[in-house]
């Protein structure tokens, strides 16, 4: 059985985000990029399934410009068998991405798709569920535990106020949450091996999908700057200010 893992290249979560001067987006020039952390968890889970002998092949796929190949190589270094780069310079909405992934699922003949629950840049948390809807496959989102047995998959999902365990029949889509696993480190021998693993490039225009944007970004603005705090000389003054200026005391 083949597992397809979708990964997105995002700004490294440790980088301080800066909004572009013209408010058209955030600054990505010369900014450190990394694999979306939830996708890293998805890759790790797929590799663990393979190490347990439950799946035969792990394929990572990413959509974006040439630079995503670096992220794909990281996926290969972690243990994926092959990679697919869908090449485009455009930034697509979740729905367009889901449409592309649907075709990739069909092309690769994958039976299980694992994705991060959301990308930390757009924070939409939509691609996985849209993909499941397009494929008309069952979906388990925000997984914190996955148990695969034959064509049945038991998934523990993080829901508001607790955990929910569901059973899916493959083929299926799963999105990962933080507690699912701790991703491993890329070891040097595996990084070297990754260099010779197959990475196929497919141009976006070879898909029968209209690139028309169904979503437009109108404005990206930084959060308002917090006002500096003040120091008060006494408790009385503090109470006074809380009452008359902040108006939080009666």
């Amino acid at each position, binding site marked *: 059985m083949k597992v397809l893992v979708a990964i997105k290249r995002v700004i*490294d*979560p*440790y*980088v301080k985000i800066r909004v572009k001067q013209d408010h058209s987006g955030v600054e990505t020039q010369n900014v*450190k990029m*990394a*694999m979306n*952390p939830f996708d890293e968890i998805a890759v790790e889970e797929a590799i663990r399934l393979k190490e347990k002998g439950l799946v035969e092949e792990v394929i990572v796929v990413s959509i974006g410009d040439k630079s995503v190949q670096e992220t794909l190589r*990281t996926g290969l*270094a972690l243990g994926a068998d092959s990679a697919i780069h869908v090449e485009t310079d455009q930034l697509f909405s979740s729905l367009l991405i889901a449409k592309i992934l649907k075709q990739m699922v069909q092309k690769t003949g994958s039976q299980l798709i694992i994705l991060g629950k959301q990308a930390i840049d757009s924070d939409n948390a939509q691609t996985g569920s849209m993909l499941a809807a397009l494929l008309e496959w069952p979906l388990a989102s925000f997984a914190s535990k996955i148990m695969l047995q034959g064509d049945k998959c038991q998934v523990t999902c993080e829901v508001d106020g607790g955990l929910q365990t569901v059973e899916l029949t493959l083929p299926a889509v799963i999105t990962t949450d933080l507690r699912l696993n*701790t991703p491993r*480190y*890329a*070891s*040097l*021998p595996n*990084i*070297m091996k990754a260099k010779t693993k197959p990475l196929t490039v497919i141009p976006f225009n070879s898909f029968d999908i209209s690139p028309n944007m169904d979503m437009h970004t109108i404005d990206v603005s930084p959060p308002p700057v917090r006002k500096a705090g003040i120091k008060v000389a006494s408790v009385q003054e503090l109470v006074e200010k809380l009452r008359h200026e902040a108006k939080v005391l009666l």
Partner: protein
Amino acid sequence: MNTETIAEELSSLVGNKNILIDYDSRMIYAKDRTQNLIPDPSLIVFPRSESQIISIVQWANHTRTALVPSGGRTGYSGGAVAQSKEVVVSFDKMNHILAYNSEDQTVRCQPGVITKNLQNFALENNLYYPVDFASSGSSQIGGNIATNAGGIKVIRYGLTRNWVYGLNVVTGNGDLLHLNKGLIKNASGYDLRHLFIGSEGTLGIITEAIIKLSTLPSESKVALLGVQEKNTMVEILNIYRKDLQVTAFEFFSEAALKHVMCESNISHPFKRAMPFYILLEYESSEFNDEVFLGLTESCINSSSINDAIISQNMAQYKYLWSLRENISMSLSKYLPYKYDISVMPSKIPVFIEEIEDLLNKTYPDFEIIWFGHIGDGNLHLNILKPVELKGSEFFEICDEMSDAIYSLVNYYNGSISAEHGIGLLKKKFLRYTKNDVEIGYMREIKKIFDKNNIMNPGKIFDDS
């Protein structure tokens, strides 16, 4: 003079808000990170300006009161410890960056500026202050200068000394000196600035510094290399250094890693444990990454390195660094006896071997933790106190052990302190690094700057 009188007189100089006298404050402010010294100061004074420092020093000369300068109190030598009713001078309230000169890329700061704050200030201006270590969130620039602090980037950027372009000091005699004034070149006789760098508060008080900032390094990557033998490490460093800009080359043992894992509750970074690890940081680029991979691959093929992991993002970068940086803290509960020794890097392999032989033969029951800035020839050997021994008994045995270890240091022309300083803890061993004639000159120098011996007396060497 009794404490009340001291408090009264100092209040008249700095105001009574800038004095602390209560028990808790005295226990906190009169002590650094050394664990076996009991503080007993008279009080703590917090000057707010250079002129207040001058008046405090003049008062101390007048009253023959000893002063102990106290920075971030992260020292490991007892340099900032007050044990005999000294007045502790703290720079907590002189913590401002006074000026930034973008043309010269220098900052003028007060002594109490926290090292990390200077680093952040540099980053905000797209520059870099490269002196860094695990305690930089607490240590102060004044303390760093007074100890000539080193840290994890010495291999690339050198010690604190390299970045101090100017110093204001108030000597023990109460004179204010403006040393070197930020100049790059200055061939006008003795450069007294360098005497104050590393003087551990014994010559005077550092009241202001002009610090040079560096350009921002390119993005760096860090790798953790697992090795079988610790005596091949210098060889490995040289392999990398030929073709790469190595910015850190640190080493630690599996035993050290175990303590960190236990303390921070994290799992092992490698599938298979290795006896020793090297944390290597280098300046990354597409080209350098390839060079790095190639070199590492050939080291693995020749078995000098057994396994390696490489940071793929900043979270991993920070995690790998934390394995090294959390060692000291994870050991502190064992009351470790800490060595901070150095030899020339080329001598490291034999040196380590001899120390290991010695310890195995004489103290087979002690747990020995190896780590250090191996690229600088600096080893932080830590001996952990066995539970069954009392602290005092343990330190007594360790002092004996030190005579043997320091004899080896002496034989290899090394130093008994690479970067922490002599302070109180190591003064009885100073002769293993410096002979009597040299120590004699040091004493004379102290007398010139501090006639009445009020500046941190009893540190580095005993009062004569």
